[in-house]
């Protein structure tokens, strides 16, 4: 399993190479990877169907209890199958769809990387590993939505998708940490067994909130649904794969996976049911406003995701059966429909369904595939979608909580979805032939194979639902209480659910018939729509930018003075606080000072103060000299002859340098106002005081044994030198001294360069001048 997932990333990285070898056929070669994984998954099926769970463990970060454990149970198997099978078909389709694009290899690389992340997500048992894969899908999705990166709308949609899902991911991370604390394990399998303890834990409410936030943003639940239709800026293969069949289902997968651990409590049932029902109705309602075929499908995906959440919320056995059937049905028909939408876009040059018509004559095969898939979307017999929808209505009718709210919303969604299906399947293919920007032809086999296979699967599972029974049992065994016997059938008898279906058929037909007029009415609601959650997102983003601008203006205003003051005040505040909290510095010291030493200290202070207050440059340089030579004197008196020599030498050179250079500069000018000077004086005084207090604290503290004792003892025997400081410089810390020489050499080169450019041309003068300005 590790080999499959991690090796897959390697294959993804090889995409450009493959492209060089086999051109656009590289897509077909890449499709072998998910095919092989799918075949391997098929071989696991007998074990999985027996209710067993397969494990592969590999310690990743043992110190932090993070393992890269993969497990395959019914739920993971279903998702992994969907990912690999739809993935292989999408790769083939994409090779045809993007065959004339030069950036096809990067597309193949990213989409394969996405596929592997998704596979890792559904197979991971460790929460941390799952989270890493979760974020990887967000990032790869960002790259794929923004694939047409020259289009500003695509870039904006990509950023929106990323911000929403990664923002939710942040909440999810917090939720996972709390989950692991409450359950005392990072393993999903162990956590699922500790459901009772988790639900009684004090952290249950916050951790549920965080986990749900993560899942809802990823799966585009209301009020985060807005990013999904915008993500349709991606190339159609991406929409078909990420934004209908797989990635948006990651949130659903997580909810299903955590159902035994966190589910069946009052908050879980209420939140999931209400949010799910609201998302359903909202998605279906928003869909019929649009004429862009991809947007229509995207909103109907929002509706389907809402339905899945709702079913998980209800959580009865019928609901879970409906969940599995609906999940599978949706992936099959939505993948197919998106690919059909891509064909329409590719062949006609438009995505507007009102601009197309009569295409069944030119592309009969596409029309047939679209019709089958749309029948499944509409929930009509004999397709899998019908079984899913019947089971859903049945479980809703039996739901105990908030049936009065959920049922009308679900019914609304059901008949609007039916209308959407009719619009997508009938509008472009029937009616009078219309002129389109491009002259359509039948789709090439490479593009038709994928949707056709998915449509056939939809039909065959619908006709023979018995095929799915063991799968449904295995999945529910993972997310429900235990193994169950499931029966799936097309004909459930004449029951209330069927009556509801018939009613929705009539109403849906009516909506389709009156669609053009209905859009006109809905257009009047436009101002109201503009105030939706997306407006909130935009406002948040604008606010963030404003805040950033404001704080940048405040903190990064280009005045070096302000940076210094800010830094110093923070330093004084933090260090001073820590210092005063830890100990009260005692000022009672025994001072044993000789008069000449005190005079020396006085000389330093006088020199420093004088350098600050004098108005003449010469006096300032002289005062600096006084400070420097007083320091040299201190070195002499307190046993540091080498330092004294160096200080004397450097001080002399400094004075010479200052005299030579500074006198070409303007005189000291008083540029600041008295208030500014007072402010600076306070800051300087505080910082100086802090240094004094710190040093006193150090002196009062306990003295540790000197680490230089070894050097003192061995200087002569090992370093063959009598001057210990010299031995340290050239032997013990020789590399340090080498670095010092390097700094000096660099500085000398810099000085030389600046003086040389002085004599150069005007152009070089400006060049070096600008550079000097930046550093100054």
């Amino acid at each position, binding site marked *: 399993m590790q080999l499959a997932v991690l090796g897959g990333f390697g294959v993804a990285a090889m995409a450009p190479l493959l492209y060089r070898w086999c051109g656009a056929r590289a897509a077909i070669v890449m499709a072998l990877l998910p095919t092989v994984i799918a075949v391997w998954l098929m071989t696991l099926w007998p074990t999985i169907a027996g209710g067993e769970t397969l494990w592969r463990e590999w310690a990743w970060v043992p110190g932090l209890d993070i393992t890269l454990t993969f497990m395959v149970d019914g739920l993971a198997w279903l998702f992994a199958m969907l990912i690999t099978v739809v993935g292989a078909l999408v790769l083939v389709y994409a090779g045809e769809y993007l065959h004339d694009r030069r950036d096809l290899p990067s597309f193949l690389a990213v989409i394969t990387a996405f596929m592997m992340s998704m596979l890792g997500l559904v197979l991971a048992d460790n929460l941390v590993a799952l989270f890493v894969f979760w974020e990887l899908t967000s990032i790869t999705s960002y790259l794929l939505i923004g694939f047409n990166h020259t289009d500003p709308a695509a870039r904006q949609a990509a950023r929106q998708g990323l911000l929403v899902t990664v923002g939710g991911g942040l909440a999810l991370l917090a939720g996972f940490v709390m989950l692991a604390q409450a359950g005392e394990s990072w393993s999903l399998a162990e956590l699922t067994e500790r459901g009772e303890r988790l639900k009684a834990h004090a952290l249950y409410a916050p951790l549920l909130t965080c986990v749900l936030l993560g899942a809802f943003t990823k799966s585009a639940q209301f009020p985060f649904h807005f990013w999904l239709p915008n993500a349709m800026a991606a190339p159609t293969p991406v929409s078909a794969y990420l934004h209908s069949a797989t990635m948006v289902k990651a949130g659903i997968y997580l909810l299903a996976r955590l159902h035994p651990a966190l589910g069946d409590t009052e908050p879980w049932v209420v939140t999931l049911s209400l949010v799910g029902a609201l998302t359903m109705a909202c998605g279906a309602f928003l869909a019929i406003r649009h004429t862009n075929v991809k947007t229509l499908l995207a909103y109907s995906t929002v509706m389907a995701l809402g339905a899945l959440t709702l079913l998980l919320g209800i959580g009865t056995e019928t609901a879970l059966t409906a969940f599995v059937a609906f999940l599978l049905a949706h992936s099959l028909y939505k993948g197919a429909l998106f690919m059909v939408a891509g064909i329409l876009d590719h062949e006609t040059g438009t995505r507007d369904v009102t601009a197309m018509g009569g295409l069944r004559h030119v592309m009969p095969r596409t029309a047939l595939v679209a019709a089958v898939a749309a029948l499944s979307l509409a929930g009509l017999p004999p397709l899998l979608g019908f079984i899913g929808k019947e089971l859903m209505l049945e479980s809703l009718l039996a739901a105990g909580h908030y049936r009065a709210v959920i049922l009308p919303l679900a019914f609304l969604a059901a008949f609007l979805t039916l209308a959407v299906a009719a619009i997508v399947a009938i509008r472009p293919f029937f009616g009078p032939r219309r002129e389109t920007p491009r002259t359509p032809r039948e789709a090439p086999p490479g593009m038709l194979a994928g949707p056709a296979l998915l449509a056939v699967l939809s039909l065959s599972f619908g006709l023979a639902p018995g095929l799915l029974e063991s799968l449904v049992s295995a999945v529910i065994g993972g997310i429900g209480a235990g193994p169950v016997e499931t029966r799936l059938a097309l004909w459930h008898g004449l029951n209330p659910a069927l009556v509801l279906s018939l009613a929705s058929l009539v109403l849906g037909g009516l909506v389709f018939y009156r669609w053009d007029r209905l859009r006109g009415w809905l257009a009047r609601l436009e101002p109201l729509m503009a105030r939706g959650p997306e407006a909130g997102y935009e406002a948040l983003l604008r606010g963030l930018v404003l805040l950033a601008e404001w704080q940048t203006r405040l903190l990064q205003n280009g005045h*070096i003075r302000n940076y210094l003051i800010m830094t110093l005040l923070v330093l004084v505040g933090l260090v001073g606080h820590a210092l005063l909290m830890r100990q009260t510095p005692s000022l009672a010291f025994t001072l044993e000072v000789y008069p000449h030493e005190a005079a020396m200290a006085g000389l330093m202070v006088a020199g420093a103060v004088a350098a600050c207050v004098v108005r003449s440059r010469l006096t300032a340089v002289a005062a600096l000299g006084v400070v420097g030579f007083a320091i040299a004197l201190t070195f002499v008196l*307190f046993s*540091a002859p080498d330092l004294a020599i160096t200080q004397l030498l*450097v001080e002399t050179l400094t004075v010479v340098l200052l005299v030579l250079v500074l006198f070409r*500069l303007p005189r000291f000018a008083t540029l600041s106002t008295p208030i500014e000077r007072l402010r600076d004086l306070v800051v300087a005084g505080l910082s100086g005081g802090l*240094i*004094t207090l710190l040093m006193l604290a150090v002196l009062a503290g306990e003295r540790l044994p000197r680490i230089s004792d070894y050097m003192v003892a061995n200087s002569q025997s090992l370093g063959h030198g009598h001057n210990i*400081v010299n031995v340290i410089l050239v032997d013990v810390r020789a590399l340090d001294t080498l670095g010092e020489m390097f700094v000096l050499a660099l500085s000398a080169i810099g000085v030389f360069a*600046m003086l040389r450019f002085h004599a150069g041309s005007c152009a070089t003068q400006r060049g070096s*001048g600008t550079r000097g300005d930046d550093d100054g």
Partner: protein
Amino acid sequence: MEPLMAVTIGILFAAAIYMMLRRSIVKLVVGLILLSNAANLLIFATAGMLRGAPPLVPQGLSAPANMVADPLPQAMVLTAIVIAFGVLSFAVVLVRRAWEIVRTDDLDKMKDTDT
């Protein structure tokens, strides 16, 4: 001696920072010189100050007979003095070049990159 040095060093730091907060770039250089001197002195004094015990090994002995001043901070300060001089000479020449080109020593007028 150390408490007195603590106060002295504090004043040196205060003077250095005050000068570094000036708008005139020449005063900033003065502040820089004071700052490096103060920092060197801080390292030196914090290690403890001994009178008349330089870290030297007398001729004929393999190690000093009595307690000597700590040689390690001295070595570090020595490096620091030299590097400070390197930085200073670079800064001074830089300031001069900047003056030649922008004809101002007011830092507030130098904050834009394209003068």
